[in-house]
C-alpha cells in the first residue's frame, strides 16, 4: 500500500437543493518521502482535496489512507488528533500569530506534538537563526513563510501539506521557499504535498497530480525533477 492513498473519493457540497460535486471519484497515490504537486486551475477542486487530505473536512464517499490508517473513517476528534500529530500545514498567507515571536510561533505548534523537533534547530535550518526573536510584522514575506515552514516541520509530521506556499511571494523569494520544501523531502525523507496552480512548480516534483472540474485528469511520475534553483516562472 502506498503512503497516501485516495480511493474513489468524492465530496459533495449541498446549498439548499443544489448539489455541487467539488471532487468526483478521485483516486491517486503518493509514496513515502516523495515531493508531490497537486495542480489545477482555481475552482478545479484542489482546495477540497487539500481539506480532505489535511483532515479539515470529511469525504462524502470513497476512502482515504495515510500510512496505513484510514482517515476517511475518523471522527471529528480523531481528525483533530490527526492534524495535530500527522500533518504539518503551510499556508499561502503564512498565518503566523502576530503576537508571538518567530521562535514562539514554532514552539506553539511543537508543544502540542508527541515527538517535536527542537524549535531553535529548525529555525536555524530555515536560515532564521538571527531573526527568531522578531515578531512576524518585523519580518519580510519570505522570512514569514520560512517561519511557517519551520512551524510545520517542527511538529515532525508524517506529511507536510502546503497550500500555494509561494503564491504571496515574489519570484526570487518563492524559489528559496520551494528549495526548502524540496530539501525537506530529499534530505529528511519527509513526504511533502504542494497544492498550486503554477505549472512551473510542478517541475520540481517527483509526482504531479492534475485535477480539473473535480476529477483527476492525470498523474505523472517525474523521474528527474528539477532542482528548485533551476525553475523559472
Amino acid at each position, binding site marked *: 500500500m502506498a503512503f497516501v492513498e485516495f480511493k474513489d473519493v468524492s465530496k459533495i457540497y449541498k446549498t439548499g437543493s443544489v448539489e455541487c460535486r467539488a471532487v468526483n471519484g478521485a483516486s491517486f497515490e503518493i509514496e513515502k518521502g516523495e515531493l508531490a504537486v497537486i495542480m489545477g486551475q482555481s475552482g478545479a477542486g484542489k*482546495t477540497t482535496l*487539500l*481539506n480532505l487530505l*489535511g483532515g*479539515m*473536512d470529511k469525504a462524502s464517499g470513497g476512502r482515504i489512507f495515510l500510512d496505513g490508517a484510514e482517515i476517511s473513517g475518523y471522527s471529528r*476528534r480523531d481528525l*483533530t*488528533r*490527526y*492534524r*495535530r*500529530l500527522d*500533518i504539518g*500545514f503551510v*499556508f*499561502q*498567507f503564512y*498565518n503566523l*500569530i*502576530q*503576537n*508571538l*515571536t518567530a521562535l*514562539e510561533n514554532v*514552539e*506553539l*505548534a511543537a*508543544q*502540542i506534538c508527541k515527538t517535536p523537533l527542537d524549535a531553535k534547530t529548525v529555525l536555524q535550518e530555515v536560515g532564521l537563526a538571527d531573526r527568531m526573536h522578531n*515578531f*512576524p*510584522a*518585523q519580518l519580510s514575506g519570505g522570512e514569514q513563510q520560512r517561519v511557517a515552514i519551520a512551524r510545520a516541520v517542527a*511538529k515532525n509530521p508524517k506529511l507536510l501539506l502546503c*497550500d500555494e506556499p509561494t503564491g504571496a511571494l515574489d519570484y526570487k523569494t518563492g524559489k528559496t521557499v520551494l528549495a526548502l520544501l524540496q530539501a525537506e523531502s530529499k534530505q529528511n525523507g519527509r513526504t511533502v504535498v504542494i497544492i498550486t496552480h503554477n505549472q512551473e512548480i510542478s517541475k520540481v516534483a517527483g509526482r504531479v497530480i492534475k485535477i480539473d472540474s473535480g476529477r483527476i485528469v492525470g498523474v505523472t511520475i517525474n523521474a528527474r525533477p528539477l532542482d528548485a534553483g533551476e525553475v523559472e516562472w
Partner: protein
Amino acid sequence: MRGRAYIKDIRRTFIKSFSRFISVFFMAMLGAGVYAGLGAVSPNMKNSVSAYYGQQNFMDLRILSPAGPFTRADADAVAALDCVESVMASVSTEAICAAADKDYVARVQTFPDEADAGDKNYLNRLELVEGRMPQGSNECVVITGSLIPNKIHPGDSVLVKEPRLNKALFAETAFTVVGFVKTPQYMSYMLGAAGIGSGQVDCVVFVRASVFPAPLYTELFVRVKGAGSANQFSKAYKNTVAAALEEIRTAFPAYVVLDRDALESHVEFTDAANNMKSVATVFPLIFFLVAALVSLTTMTRMIDEERLSIGAYRSLGYGSVKIALKYILYAFLATIAGALIGIGIGFELFTRVIWGAYGIVFNFPALSVGFYPGILTLTAALMLFFTLSATVYACARTLRERPALLLQPKSPQVGRRVFLERIKPFWRRLPFSYKITARNTFLNKKRFFMTVIGVAGCMALLLIGFGLKDSINAVLMNQFEQVFRYDATAAVGGTVTGGLQATLDDASRITDYAFVLKKALNVENEKGEPYDAFLVAPKTDGALRDFIVLQERKSKKPIAFGSNSVVVTEKLARELSLRVGSEIRVNFLEDAAAAYPLTVTGVTENYVLEYVYVGSSAYVAAFGAAPEYNQVLLKMNGASEEQRRALSEKLFASGAVPSVAFNADTVKRFSNSFKSLDSIVYVLIVSAALLAVVVLYNLTNINIVERKREIATLKVLGFYARETNMYVFRETLILTLLGIIAGIFLGLGLFGFVVTTIELKVVLIAHIIKPLSYVFSFGLTAVFSVLVALLISGKIKGIDMVESLKSVE
C-alpha cells in the same frame, strides 16, 4: 443614480451587520434605561403622593396651643386670616387602648361627623380601605402600623383605658371596629412616637367628632390658600406655606404652628424620595461610561472592517462627510432606537419595582407613572453624544489616511513584549500558553480597559447591593444586641408602687431591672436647629450602663455616666453638630414653648432612633423637679416567645404594668420594614448581571471576529476544542480577575457615598460589607463571565478552518 447606489449600500450594510446593530442598540437601551428609569423614580413617587395629598385635602399646617384647648371662636379667628383656605378643628389624644385582649398605644383622633367629600373644611380625608365608615358614635375605623400588623380585625371592640385627655371629655370609650382607612397624615406604617406606654404609636383610632361633645379642640389643621394648586413638593408650595406659617405665628404668638416637616410620615417619605434621587445619580454613571466605551469599540471595529469600502468611496471621489454619514447614521439609528425603548421600559420598570418595595414601609396611594420629556431628552442626548462622538472619532481616524493606503488591508497590529517579560525568573517559569495570554491581554489596550471597566462596574454594583443589605441588617443587631443590653421595656402607671417592685423581684425570669423616665422630646442646638429624640433618665445613675452600653463607636472607649451626665446619641450629635460641652435646649411635645438647657457630657454609639440620657442631678437642675419614672427596663434569662408571653401576663396581672414591649419583637418588626430594601438590592444585582453579560459578550465577540483567522489556524494546527477555547478565554479570565479587583475599590468608594445618602432620618447605618458578600459578588461576577464564555464557545466552534486559507481582508 449615484445617490441610489449609495443608499442601497447603506441598506445592505445595515442588514449585513445586524448583530452589531443589536449590540449598539442593546448597550444604548441598557444605559438609557437605567439612567432614565432611576431618574424617574423620585419624581414619580413625589407626583403620585402629591396628587394623593391634594385629593385627600391634606393639611399644610397644624396648630397646637400650649395654653389650653382651642374653642370654636379660636378656629374661626384662624380661618378669617387672608392666607388661610380652610380649617378643621379636631381632637386627638394618646391613649392606652385594649383591643382583642391586648393593650396598645393608640392615638384617638376625630374626623367630622358630616364627612362630606366636597367639604373644603374636611382635611386629612380618610379613604376607606376595608369595611365601612362609622355611623354611630360608638363605632370607629382604624389604621394599624407595622408594629401590630393584622392584630385588630373588623368587629373587634376597642376600649379606651387610659387616655391622656381627661376621660370625662369622652362621650363613649368603647368602640366597635367597622373598617380600616388610610390617610396622608399616617402614610408611613411607622405611626410615630408616643408619650406613653412603649413610646411608639401602635394604631390610630378614628372616631366621629361627636364622641367629644364639648366644643374644645386639641389641634387645628389648616390648608393654606394657593398651596393646593402647586406640586406639594415644589419650592412654590414651600414658599406659600412658609409665608402663611409666618403670618399665623405673628397673629397668634401663643400658638405652636407646625408645617408638614413636623410630621414623621411626610418627612420619612420625602427622605425616601430624595434618597432615590441620589442613588439615581450614582449608578447610571457606571452604565453610561461602559455603554459609551462599548459603542466606541463596536463602531471602531465596524469602520476597520469597512476599510476597503471606505477606500473605494474615497477613490471614487466621495467626500469625507458623506462617507462618515453612513456610519454616523448607523450609530444614530441603533442608539436612538435603543435609548427610546430603554427609556420606555426604564420609566415603568424601575418606578414600579421601587414603589412596590417602599410599599412595605408606606401605605401608598395608587401609583401614577408619569412621562418625563426632560429626562427623555437629556438621556437620549447624552447617549447620542457618547456614541456619536465615538463614531466620529473612529471615522476621522480612518478617513485621515490616504485613499491609496485605505485600499490596502490595515497592517496587522505589531506584536510587542509586555512588561512582565522583564521579570525574567517569573517569565521563564510561566507556562507557554500563559505567556501568549499575557501578551494578548496587554496588546489591545482598548479591549483591556473596556473589559476591566465593565467587569469592575459589575463587581462594584454587586458589592454595593450586598453591602447595603449587610449594613442595614447590622443596624438592628448593633442596636439590640450591642447597645441595648436589656430584653424588654414595661410601662408603669404613674408612680412606682411597692407592689410592682415586689412582682419584679419575685419574677424568676427577670434577672435585673431599672426604672427610667422615657419621654419623646425635641432637641435644639445653639443655632436653634431642631431634632426629635427621646429623653431617658434612670432612677439609679450607676445602673444605666448595665442596661445600655455607653461608648464611643470607633474607639469603643466607655463613656462615664454619673448624676451630672448628659449623654447624647451619635447621629443626634452629628445632625446638630454637638460635642462634649455643647449647650442644647430641649422641649416636650405637650409644651413646645418651654425650653430647658442641658450641657452635653458625652456622645455615644447608637443606631436606631435618638436618645438623650440625663443623670439625676442634671435632670433636677434642668427641669426643676425629680423625674417621674414611667418605664422599667428588664433583663431576662431566656426570652423565647413562650417565656415572653408568660412574663407579660404576670406583669399585667400585677395591675401596675399596662404594656410590655420586647426588643425581640421590635427587631422582627423592623426587619420586615427593611425587606423593602431587598428589592432595591435585587435591582442592583440584575443590572450588574446585564452589564457584565452585555459587556463581556460584546467584547469577547469582537475579539473572536477580529481573530477568526488566528483561531482557524489553531484549529488547523490541531488544537483541541478545549485548548482553542482556553486560548481565548484565558484572556477573558485574566481581564475578569483584574476587573474584579478594580471593582472592589470602585465598589468601596461608591458604597460609602451611597450609604450616606440613603441613610434614613432616624437610623445610623454603619458601613459594613461582610466577607460573605465579597464571596457572593466575586462568585456572581465569575458566573456571568463563565456564562458568556459558554455563549461564545459555540461561536468558536462555528469558525470554519477554511477561514485560515482565505487571503487577508
